[in-house]
Protein backbone atom coordinates (compact mmCIF):
# COMPACT_ATOMS: atom_id res chain seq x y z
CA UNK A 1 0.00 0.00 0.00
CA UNK A 2 1.24 3.46 -0.89
CA UNK A 3 -0.10 6.30 1.23
CA UNK A 4 0.30 9.97 0.46
CA UNK A 5 -0.67 12.03 3.47
CA UNK A 6 -1.20 15.75 2.95
CA UNK A 7 1.59 15.85 0.45
CA UNK A 8 2.56 19.25 -0.83
CA UNK A 9 5.41 19.92 -3.19
CA UNK A 10 6.48 23.33 -4.38
CA UNK A 11 9.42 23.98 -6.59
CA UNK A 12 11.18 27.07 -5.35
CA UNK A 13 8.83 29.35 -3.49
CA UNK A 14 5.74 29.29 -5.59
CA UNK A 15 5.81 26.89 -8.52
CA UNK A 16 3.28 24.17 -7.77
CA UNK A 17 4.06 20.50 -8.04
CA UNK A 18 1.36 19.11 -5.79
CA UNK A 19 -1.11 20.92 -3.52
CA UNK A 20 -1.58 19.20 -0.18
CA UNK A 21 -3.17 15.99 -1.42
CA UNK A 22 -3.88 12.66 0.24
CA UNK A 23 -4.44 9.44 -1.64
CA UNK A 24 -3.92 5.73 -1.03
CA UNK A 25 -2.95 3.18 -3.66
CA UNK A 26 -4.02 -0.32 -2.70
CA UNK A 27 -2.03 -3.49 -3.29
CA UNK A 28 -2.63 -5.26 -6.56
CA UNK A 29 -4.32 -2.30 -8.19
CA UNK A 30 -3.35 -0.75 -11.49
CA UNK A 31 -3.92 2.98 -11.45
CA UNK A 32 -3.64 5.40 -14.35
CA UNK A 33 -2.57 8.91 -13.40
CA UNK A 34 -3.69 11.26 -16.08
CA UNK A 35 -3.55 14.97 -16.62
CA UNK A 36 -1.97 17.57 -18.88
CA UNK A 37 1.70 18.38 -18.88
CA UNK A 38 2.50 20.26 -15.69
CA UNK A 39 -0.48 18.84 -13.79
CA UNK A 40 1.72 17.09 -11.23
CA UNK A 41 1.92 13.54 -12.60
CA UNK A 42 5.69 13.28 -12.58
CA UNK A 43 5.94 15.12 -9.26
CA UNK A 44 3.62 12.58 -7.65
CA UNK A 45 5.62 9.62 -8.92
CA UNK A 46 8.97 11.18 -8.04
CA UNK A 47 7.69 12.06 -4.58
CA UNK A 48 6.66 8.44 -4.01
CA UNK A 49 10.08 7.27 -5.18
CA UNK A 50 11.71 9.70 -2.77
CA UNK A 51 13.37 11.54 -5.62
CA UNK A 52 12.31 14.96 -4.42
CA UNK A 53 12.01 16.55 -1.05
CA UNK A 54 8.45 17.23 0.07
CA UNK A 55 7.43 20.73 1.08
CA UNK A 56 4.88 19.24 3.48
CA UNK A 57 3.33 15.89 4.39
CA UNK A 58 4.65 12.36 4.22
CA UNK A 59 4.53 9.27 2.09
CA UNK A 60 4.47 5.73 3.45
CA UNK A 61 5.00 2.49 1.60
CA UNK A 62 3.72 -0.52 3.53
CA UNK A 63 3.85 1.84 6.50
CA UNK A 64 7.49 2.75 6.00
CA UNK A 65 9.38 5.60 4.34
CA UNK A 66 10.56 4.79 0.82
CA UNK A 67 14.19 4.91 1.90
CA UNK A 68 13.75 1.62 3.72
CA UNK A 69 11.91 -0.19 0.92
CA UNK A 70 13.87 0.71 -2.25
CA UNK A 71 14.19 -2.97 -3.06
CA UNK A 72 10.42 -3.18 -3.57
CA UNK A 73 10.28 -0.25 -5.96
CA UNK A 74 10.76 0.04 -9.68
CA UNK A 75 10.59 3.38 -11.49
CA UNK A 76 10.34 3.39 -15.26
CA UNK A 77 10.86 6.87 -16.62
CA UNK A 78 11.39 8.67 -19.87
CA UNK A 79 14.54 10.22 -18.43
CA UNK A 80 15.93 6.74 -17.84
CA UNK A 81 17.23 5.31 -14.62
CA UNK A 82 20.11 3.47 -16.32
CA UNK A 83 23.68 4.69 -16.48
CA UNK A 84 24.28 5.93 -20.02
CA UNK A 85 27.92 4.87 -19.96
CA UNK A 86 27.02 1.23 -19.31
CA UNK A 87 26.00 -1.44 -21.77
CA UNK A 88 22.68 -3.19 -21.06
CA UNK A 89 24.64 -6.21 -19.85
CA UNK A 90 26.68 -4.15 -17.38
CA UNK A 91 23.52 -2.45 -16.22
CA UNK A 92 21.93 -5.85 -15.60
CA UNK A 93 24.90 -6.87 -13.45
CA UNK A 94 24.56 -3.68 -11.49
CA UNK A 95 20.85 -4.25 -10.89
CA UNK A 96 21.47 -7.82 -9.82
CA UNK A 97 23.73 -6.62 -7.05
CA UNK A 98 21.17 -4.10 -5.91
CA UNK A 99 17.80 -5.88 -6.25
CA UNK A 100 17.56 -9.22 -4.48
CA UNK A 101 14.70 -10.27 -6.76
CA UNK A 102 16.33 -9.18 -10.02
CA UNK A 103 15.70 -11.78 -12.72
CA UNK A 104 18.66 -11.74 -15.12
CA UNK A 105 17.20 -14.39 -17.44
CA UNK A 106 14.08 -12.37 -17.82
CA UNK A 107 16.06 -9.16 -18.45
CA UNK A 108 18.11 -10.85 -21.20
CA UNK A 109 15.00 -12.38 -22.70
CA UNK A 110 13.31 -8.98 -22.84
CA UNK A 111 16.38 -7.35 -24.43
CA UNK A 112 16.39 -10.08 -27.06
CA UNK A 113 12.67 -9.66 -27.62
CA UNK A 114 13.16 -5.91 -28.11
CA UNK A 115 16.16 -6.61 -30.39
CA UNK A 116 18.51 -4.56 -28.22
CA UNK A 117 22.26 -5.02 -28.65
CA UNK A 118 23.48 -6.21 -25.25
CA UNK A 119 27.03 -4.95 -25.60
CA UNK A 120 26.75 -1.43 -26.92
CA UNK A 121 26.63 1.59 -24.68
CA UNK A 122 23.15 2.78 -23.80
CA UNK A 123 24.26 6.36 -24.47
CA UNK A 124 24.59 5.62 -28.18
CA UNK A 125 21.10 4.18 -28.56
CA UNK A 126 18.03 5.85 -30.06
CA UNK A 127 15.30 7.22 -27.82
CA UNK A 128 13.05 4.24 -28.49
CA UNK A 129 15.85 1.75 -27.78
CA UNK A 130 16.72 3.51 -24.53
CA UNK A 131 13.13 3.31 -23.36
CA UNK A 132 13.13 -0.40 -24.17
CA UNK A 133 16.20 -0.93 -21.98
CA UNK A 134 14.44 1.03 -19.25
CA UNK A 135 11.32 -1.09 -19.55
CA UNK A 136 13.23 -4.38 -19.68
CA UNK A 137 15.09 -3.42 -16.51
CA UNK A 138 12.02 -2.07 -14.76
CA UNK A 139 10.10 -5.30 -15.27
CA UNK A 140 12.94 -7.58 -14.22
CA UNK A 141 13.52 -6.15 -10.78
CA UNK A 142 10.89 -8.33 -9.14
CA UNK A 143 9.49 -5.16 -7.59
CA UNK A 144 6.19 -5.08 -5.78
CA UNK A 145 5.57 -1.48 -6.77
CA UNK A 146 6.06 -0.45 -10.36
CA UNK A 147 5.80 3.24 -11.17
CA UNK A 148 5.86 4.30 -14.79
CA UNK A 149 6.16 7.86 -15.99
CA UNK A 150 4.91 8.22 -19.56
CA UNK A 151 6.22 4.81 -20.61
CA UNK A 152 4.80 5.12 -24.11
CA UNK A 153 6.77 8.20 -25.08
CA UNK A 154 9.30 7.65 -27.81
CA UNK A 155 7.60 4.44 -28.88
CA UNK A 156 5.64 3.94 -32.06
CA UNK A 157 2.14 2.52 -32.00
CA UNK A 158 3.20 -1.09 -32.56
CA UNK A 159 5.76 -0.95 -29.81
CA UNK A 160 3.15 0.51 -27.49
CA UNK A 161 0.86 -2.45 -28.12
CA UNK A 162 3.72 -4.92 -27.79
CA UNK A 163 4.71 -3.25 -24.58
CA UNK A 164 1.22 -3.48 -23.12
CA UNK A 165 0.93 -7.15 -24.02
CA UNK A 166 4.35 -7.82 -22.59
CA UNK A 167 3.63 -5.90 -19.44
CA UNK A 168 0.38 -7.78 -18.91
CA UNK A 169 1.95 -11.18 -19.46
CA UNK A 170 4.73 -10.37 -17.01
CA UNK A 171 2.41 -9.45 -14.16
CA UNK A 172 2.12 -11.94 -11.35
CA UNK A 173 -1.05 -10.39 -10.00
CA UNK A 174 0.40 -8.96 -6.79
CA UNK A 175 2.06 -5.91 -8.29
CA UNK A 176 0.77 -2.46 -7.60
CA UNK A 177 1.20 -0.31 -10.67
CA UNK A 178 1.01 3.43 -11.15
CA UNK A 179 1.21 4.60 -14.70
CA UNK A 180 1.20 8.24 -15.73
CA UNK A 181 0.22 9.00 -19.28
CA UNK A 182 -1.84 11.24 -21.47
CA UNK A 183 -2.53 8.47 -23.97
CA UNK A 184 -5.84 7.42 -22.47
CA UNK A 185 -6.86 5.07 -25.28
CA UNK A 186 -3.92 2.83 -24.53
CA UNK A 187 -4.74 2.37 -20.88
CA UNK A 188 -8.52 2.69 -20.88
CA UNK A 189 -9.08 -1.06 -20.59
CA UNK A 190 -5.91 -1.79 -18.72
CA UNK A 191 -6.27 0.21 -15.52
CA UNK A 192 -8.52 -0.55 -12.54
CA UNK A 193 -8.57 3.00 -11.37
CA UNK A 194 -8.00 6.53 -12.65
CA UNK A 195 -6.67 9.54 -10.80
CA UNK A 196 -7.00 12.81 -12.69
CA UNK A 197 -4.61 15.60 -11.79
CA UNK A 198 -4.91 19.23 -12.71
CA UNK A 199 -2.59 22.00 -11.54
CA UNK A 200 -1.31 19.91 -8.67
CA UNK A 201 -4.75 18.89 -7.46
CA UNK A 202 -6.55 15.56 -7.58
CA UNK A 203 -9.65 16.45 -9.55
CA UNK A 204 -11.10 12.96 -9.73
CA UNK A 205 -10.36 9.49 -8.43
CA UNK A 206 -12.56 6.56 -9.49
CA UNK A 207 -12.68 2.95 -10.62
CA UNK A 208 -13.19 2.28 -14.31
CA UNK A 209 -16.02 -0.21 -13.78
CA UNK A 210 -17.92 2.29 -11.63
CA UNK A 211 -17.38 4.99 -14.22
CA UNK A 212 -18.73 2.77 -17.00
CA UNK A 213 -21.85 1.98 -14.96
CA UNK A 214 -22.69 5.65 -15.39
CA UNK A 215 -22.53 5.22 -19.16
CA UNK A 216 -19.71 7.70 -19.67
CA UNK A 217 -16.45 7.22 -21.48
CA UNK A 218 -13.12 8.17 -19.96
CA UNK A 219 -12.70 10.93 -22.50
CA UNK A 220 -16.03 12.48 -21.47
CA UNK A 221 -15.20 12.30 -17.77
CA UNK A 222 -11.80 13.79 -18.44
CA UNK A 223 -13.31 16.68 -20.36
CA UNK A 224 -15.88 17.29 -17.63
CA UNK A 225 -13.43 17.27 -14.74
CA UNK A 226 -10.79 19.38 -16.39
CA UNK A 227 -13.26 21.75 -17.98
CA UNK A 228 -12.02 21.12 -21.48
CA UNK A 229 -14.17 22.94 -23.99
CA UNK A 230 -14.60 21.01 -27.21
CA UNK A 231 -16.11 24.05 -28.89
CA UNK A 232 -13.15 26.26 -28.03
CA UNK A 233 -11.66 26.02 -31.51
CA UNK A 234 -14.79 27.66 -32.91
CA UNK A 235 -13.59 30.95 -31.44
CA UNK A 236 -11.12 30.94 -34.28
CA UNK A 237 -13.98 31.52 -36.68
CA UNK A 238 -15.63 34.34 -34.75
CA UNK A 239 -14.79 37.78 -35.98
Amino acid at each position, binding site marked *: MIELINVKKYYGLSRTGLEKESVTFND*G*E*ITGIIGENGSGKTTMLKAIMGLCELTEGRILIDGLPVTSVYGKMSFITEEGSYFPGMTPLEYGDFLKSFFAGFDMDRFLKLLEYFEIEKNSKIRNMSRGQKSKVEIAAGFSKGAKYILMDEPFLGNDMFTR*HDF*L*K*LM*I*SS*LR*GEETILISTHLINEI*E*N*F*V*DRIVILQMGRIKADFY*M*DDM*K*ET*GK*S*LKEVLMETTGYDEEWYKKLFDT
Partner: protein
Amino acid sequence: MIDFSNVALNIREPVYIQLVLHVKKQIAKGTASSGDSLPSRRELAAMLEINPNTVQKAYRLMEQEGFVVTEGNTGSVLNFDSHTLNLIREELTKGMVRDFISNAKELNLSFKQTIDLVSDVWDEV
Protein backbone atom coordinates in the same frame (compact mmCIF):
# COMPACT_ATOMS: atom_id res chain seq x y z
CA MET B 1 -10.90 -23.47 -26.66
CA ILE B 2 -13.31 -20.55 -26.60
CA ASP B 3 -12.26 -18.02 -29.21
CA PHE B 4 -11.88 -14.42 -28.07
CA SER B 5 -9.94 -13.16 -31.07
CA ASN B 6 -12.96 -11.46 -32.62
CA VAL B 7 -14.01 -9.58 -29.49
CA ALA B 8 -14.34 -5.88 -30.19
CA LEU B 9 -14.38 -4.14 -26.84
CA ASN B 10 -16.44 -1.00 -26.54
CA ILE B 11 -15.55 1.77 -24.12
CA ARG B 12 -19.04 2.07 -22.66
CA GLU B 13 -19.53 -1.12 -20.71
CA PRO B 14 -17.33 -2.63 -18.02
CA VAL B 15 -14.90 -4.93 -19.80
CA TYR B 16 -15.68 -7.94 -17.60
CA ILE B 17 -19.37 -7.69 -18.53
CA GLN B 18 -18.41 -7.69 -22.21
CA LEU B 19 -16.30 -10.79 -21.76
CA VAL B 20 -19.13 -12.64 -20.02
CA LEU B 21 -21.56 -11.58 -22.74
CA HIS B 22 -19.17 -12.81 -25.43
CA VAL B 23 -19.08 -16.28 -23.87
CA LYS B 24 -22.85 -16.33 -23.38
CA LYS B 25 -23.39 -15.47 -27.04
CA GLN B 26 -21.18 -18.32 -28.14
CA ILE B 27 -23.09 -20.67 -25.86
CA ALA B 28 -26.44 -19.45 -27.16
CA LYS B 29 -25.32 -19.79 -30.78
CA GLY B 30 -24.03 -23.28 -30.11
CA THR B 31 -20.45 -22.44 -31.14
CA ALA B 32 -19.32 -23.21 -27.61
CA SER B 33 -20.36 -26.31 -25.75
CA SER B 34 -20.08 -27.69 -22.27
CA GLY B 35 -16.57 -29.06 -21.75
CA ASP B 36 -14.82 -26.41 -23.90
CA SER B 37 -11.96 -24.70 -22.11
CA LEU B 38 -11.35 -21.00 -21.62
CA PRO B 39 -7.91 -19.44 -22.19
CA SER B 40 -5.78 -18.76 -19.13
CA ARG B 41 -6.42 -15.42 -17.47
CA ARG B 42 -3.01 -14.08 -18.30
CA GLU B 43 -3.17 -15.21 -21.92
CA LEU B 44 -6.55 -13.60 -22.47
CA ALA B 45 -5.51 -10.38 -20.70
CA ALA B 46 -2.40 -10.03 -22.86
CA MET B 47 -4.27 -10.79 -26.06
CA LEU B 48 -6.96 -8.18 -25.44
CA GLU B 49 -4.58 -5.74 -23.68
CA ILE B 50 -6.71 -5.65 -20.60
CA ASN B 51 -6.09 -5.93 -16.90
CA PRO B 52 -5.67 -9.53 -15.62
CA ASN B 53 -7.86 -8.56 -12.65
CA THR B 54 -10.65 -7.85 -15.14
CA VAL B 55 -10.41 -11.32 -16.66
CA GLN B 56 -10.43 -12.76 -13.17
CA LYS B 57 -13.58 -10.78 -12.43
CA ALA B 58 -15.28 -12.10 -15.58
CA TYR B 59 -14.35 -15.71 -14.84
CA ARG B 60 -15.57 -15.40 -11.28
CA LEU B 61 -18.91 -14.00 -12.45
CA MET B 62 -19.32 -16.90 -14.89
CA GLU B 63 -18.57 -19.33 -12.07
CA GLN B 64 -21.16 -17.64 -9.88
CA GLU B 65 -23.72 -17.78 -12.68
CA GLY B 66 -23.03 -21.48 -12.86
CA PHE B 67 -21.70 -22.17 -16.35
CA VAL B 68 -17.96 -22.19 -15.74
CA VAL B 69 -15.93 -24.34 -13.37
CA THR B 70 -12.31 -23.81 -12.44
CA GLU B 71 -10.29 -26.65 -11.03
CA GLY B 72 -6.69 -26.42 -9.94
CA ASN B 73 -4.25 -26.60 -12.82
CA THR B 74 -6.68 -27.57 -15.54
CA GLY B 75 -7.92 -24.00 -15.79
CA SER B 76 -11.47 -22.87 -16.45
CA VAL B 77 -13.92 -24.97 -18.41
CA LEU B 78 -17.48 -24.42 -19.58
CA ASN B 79 -19.90 -26.59 -17.73
CA PHE B 80 -23.66 -26.24 -18.17
CA ASP B 81 -26.80 -28.31 -18.55
CA SER B 82 -29.79 -27.69 -20.80
CA HIS B 83 -31.53 -25.72 -18.07
CA THR B 84 -28.66 -23.19 -17.85
CA LEU B 85 -28.46 -23.09 -21.64
CA ASN B 86 -32.13 -22.13 -21.78
CA LEU B 87 -31.61 -19.43 -19.15
CA ILE B 88 -28.74 -17.92 -21.13
CA ARG B 89 -30.69 -18.03 -24.38
CA GLU B 90 -33.65 -16.39 -22.71
CA GLU B 91 -31.49 -13.68 -21.18
CA LEU B 92 -29.86 -12.85 -24.52
CA THR B 93 -33.01 -13.00 -26.63
CA LYS B 94 -35.04 -10.93 -24.20
CA GLY B 95 -32.22 -8.41 -24.01
CA MET B 96 -32.15 -8.15 -27.79
CA VAL B 97 -35.91 -7.68 -28.03
CA ARG B 98 -35.87 -5.08 -25.26
CA ASP B 99 -33.23 -3.05 -27.11
CA PHE B 100 -35.21 -3.35 -30.31
CA ILE B 101 -38.45 -2.23 -28.68
CA SER B 102 -36.85 0.73 -26.94
CA ASN B 103 -35.37 1.81 -30.29
CA ALA B 104 -38.78 1.46 -31.92
CA LYS B 105 -40.41 3.48 -29.16
CA GLU B 106 -37.80 6.16 -29.50
CA LEU B 107 -38.90 6.52 -33.11
CA ASN B 108 -42.53 6.80 -31.94
CA LEU B 109 -43.58 3.57 -33.63
CA SER B 110 -46.76 1.94 -32.36
CA PHE B 111 -46.95 -1.73 -31.44
CA LYS B 112 -48.85 -2.50 -34.64
CA GLN B 113 -46.48 -0.52 -36.87
CA THR B 114 -43.54 -2.31 -35.31
CA ILE B 115 -45.05 -5.76 -35.82
CA ASP B 116 -45.99 -4.91 -39.42
CA LEU B 117 -42.46 -3.75 -40.09
CA VAL B 118 -41.04 -6.92 -38.58
CA SER B 119 -43.25 -9.04 -40.86
CA ASP B 120 -42.30 -6.97 -43.92
CA VAL B 121 -38.58 -6.97 -43.32
CA TRP B 122 -38.25 -10.47 -41.83
CA ASP B 123 -37.46 -12.19 -45.14
CA GLU B 124 -35.20 -9.41 -46.42
CA VAL B 125 -32.49 -10.05 -43.81
